[in-house]
């Protein structure tokens, strides 16, 4: 019930923000100004006023609820416990990464993910310990949004969605498909199973936000227009992820944020 109330409040805030900031679309520059036009295309943000309104709403929700919750999570759980939770959650996501590796024709990465899943589920005690990285199988991320991109599907216009963050129609559709292809999504049974699945979702969100406390604080402090900086960073980061050029490291719990904190395992053999 509480989440419904929160959503209603969020929706009202969004409406208010849209009214305050003015509705409609970003103005497309005339063809006589090729540099401005190139920039407009680069930003890929035709519904910028609406997105900015969503950003304001998200900022409010984040300041009031989400960030404080992530801080409480950090304060009350010791680092070892948080790492164990993070490992279990990313291990549970392995099948989704594996399917996307396969759909992208990435044999070696598919093998890596399969090996990680088998090792961490057994030797790693149901995923609590990431032993696979020590065996030379470092973590990487994949999602169906990237699979679509590899198959030539365009991203569509930039979207900023409260709570979810920066996205676009392709990545949003990808997230839905990823949820649908996760066997755990379809697992039902007694109340205990349902509670465990809710806990997985809730802890996953807390873990993702906890890891972003410093990066997002830094973004807010070091930029004048954090919305524009995040938009540019998200598009660049996704392009690097799609090309599998994440550098030494890629976080494998896809948060949707373009300013991820890096990998899960600093001890990787990179």
């Amino acid at each position, binding site marked *: 019930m509480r989440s419904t109330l929160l959503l209603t409040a969020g929706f009202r805030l969004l409406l208010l923000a849209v009214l305050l900031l003015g509705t409609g679309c970003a103005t497309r520059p005339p063809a006589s100004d090729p540099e401005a036009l190139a920039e407009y295309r*680069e930003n890929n943000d035709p519904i910028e006023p609406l997105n900015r309104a969503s950003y304001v709403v998200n900022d409010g929700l984040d300041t009031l609820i989400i960030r404080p919750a992530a801080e409480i999570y950090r304060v009350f759980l010791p680092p070892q416990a948080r790492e164990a939770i993070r490992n279990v959650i990313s291990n549970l996501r392995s099948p989704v990464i594996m399917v996307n590796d396969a759909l992208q024709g990435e044999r070696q990465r598919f093998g890596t993910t399969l090996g990680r899943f088998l090792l961490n589920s057994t030797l790693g005690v149901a995923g609590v310990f990431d032993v696979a990285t020590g065996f030379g199988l470092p973590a990487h991320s994949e999602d169906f949004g990237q699979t679509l991109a590899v198959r030539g599907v365009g991203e569509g216009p930039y979207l900023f969605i409260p709570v979810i963050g920066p996205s676009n129609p392709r990545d949003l559709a990808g997230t839905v498909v990823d949820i649908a292809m996760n066997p755990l999504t379809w697992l039902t049974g007694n109340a205990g199973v349902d509670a465990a699945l809710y806990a997985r979702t809730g802890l996953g969100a807390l873990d993702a936000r906890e890891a972003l406390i410093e990066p997002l604080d830094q973004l807010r402090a070091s930029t*004048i227009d954090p919305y524009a900086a995040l938009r*540019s960073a998200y598009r660049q980061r996704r392009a690097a992820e799609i090309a599998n050029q994440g550098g030494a490291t890629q976080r494998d719990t896809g948060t949707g944020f373009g300013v991820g904190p890096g990998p899960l395992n600093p001890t990787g053999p990179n």
Partner: protein
Amino acid sequence: MIHPVLPRRWALALPLALLAAPASAQMDPGRAGDFIRVTGEELVGAINTQGSVAQRREKVAAILRRAVDLEGVGRFILGRWWRIATPEEQQQYNRLFEETLIRNLSARFGEYQGVRFTLGRVQARAEEDVLVNTTVERPGTAAFGLDWRVGDVAGQPKIVDVIAEGTSLRLTQRSEYSSIITRNGGRVASLLDAMRGQILALSAREGG
């Protein structure tokens, strides 16, 4: 075309100079790699020295001032608005840009106590710059990939971009600055005001 203001003898000297040093803008990958290794070691040394946060930050700032092509990066970030800005605005922008960049970067690096970094691949790029891959590790947090783009500025290797996990600092900041100017009716002065405000906020955070 010869610039009308240039003395006549330059018209001869310029093509000769270009012939004499055809590779002056081309960065040597080995040299760029060494430059990043040395600069990185200096930065790590400054970050991990004893002393107050303010002292560490000052040391980091001094290294960055030497190593970064501040003018080139600033010009790149202002992009098409550089030509629209008046000479006074350009001057003010250069000053404000240097201060915000140095403050932001040294505040960020100044907090990286116990940092270690490892040099990775060094790749020559088609655009005459060299990309140097490094991995940054800090105790208690995840390692991340940090790439440095090194260019040749007047015969010296200089940092022209920093790329964290696929996100280029100068591309992100160019997009941000242009967005501020565009949303303020194309006035470069509005960006300068915002930068002044940011410097005040940053120095308040630093406590002085």
